[in-house]
């Protein structure tokens, strides 16, 4: 039986992007944050390397209705754009969380048994 999963560079990029979206949503689970805060957290967690790429991602999440934004005055510097999870975003995050755990379990099972058949 052939069971070879090739690693494909464009798919990897897609995957990274896919994961990031939900990491952003997860960071917003406990309340609003502004863009730079989000990027800093993702960067610290080594989930993002080109920090600037998060901003277009945030724009897309907003377009998709997963987050909404509002401007807030800042004590230092210009007003900041704050991001907040919408009910749709929350539902999407919940779905992902469930699937993620299930999938991890399945994959862990496979990785640990090193090929069941």
């Amino acid at each position, binding site marked *: *039986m*052939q*069971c*070879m*999963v090739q*690693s*494909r*560079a*464009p*798919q*990897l990029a*897609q*995957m*990274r*992007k*896919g*994961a990031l*979206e*939900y990491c952003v949503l997860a960071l917003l689970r406990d309340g609003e944050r502004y*863009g*730079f805060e989000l*990027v800093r957290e993702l*960067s610290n967690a*080594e*989930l993002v*390397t*080109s*920090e*600037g*790429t998060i*901003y*277009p*991602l945030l*724009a*897309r999440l907003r*377009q998709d209705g997963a987050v909404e934004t509002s401007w807030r005055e800042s004590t*230092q*510097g*210009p007003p*900041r*754009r704050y991001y907040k999870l919408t009910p749709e975003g929350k539902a*999407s995050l919940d*779905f*992902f969380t*469930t*699937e*993620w755990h*299930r*999938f*991890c379990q*399945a*994959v862990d*099972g*496979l*990785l640990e*048994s090193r*090929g*069941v*058949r």
Partner: protein
Amino acid sequence: MSDLVMGSDLNAMVEAYLSELSGALSRLPASRRDQLVSEIREHITERRSERPPRDRSDMEALLNRVGLPEDIAAVALEDMEEPASDIQSALPPPAGPPRWHHRFSNRVLVGAAAGALVLVVVVAGIVATGRSTSVTRSQIVPAAAVPRPPRLPGQHVSVVPVVIGESQAAAAAELAALGFTYSAIDVSSTAPAGIVVSQSPAGGASQPIGADVVLTVSSGPGSSS
């Protein structure tokens, strides 16, 4: 160099960077481009105030972390390009690392990429699944509910169907009809035995005709090897 001169030198680096970014984003509508550029400008300002760069090489490192203008543009322009169904998109990319490996040494990426590889592979399946169907643990969408384009004569690529939730036999028949081969891996799962619990490539991906789709099939609960 005096602090003042150095400061304006560093500012000039930022402006050069932002203008390159703006150029890379030229295909975006002006309003979105301006917004993105101003967000990145803010980001750079925040980073600078956290730990002020002392010289050009500090500033270069800071801008490296922000990323190559073309990488940021690539993400921004994604929404503008419909998921391609043409052959071009199904072809593998040209060999060799992305350009920015040459221009920017990004230590973080190498470590993160290695570490995140497994994690990231896992996510892809989930993301693709979540996007294309409404399959959940307790709900399985019948195959017929998901519309699929028929395979056209002379076509070289085909869209991988979502077969998660189907029996292995049904999935096999469906994949064969679209010109794909498949491999099956059994895994113990809470799903009923014989049901496909994951697939790679994910449903919705364009793949060359003849490509192999790896199916993970449940062998039922508690029957692990």
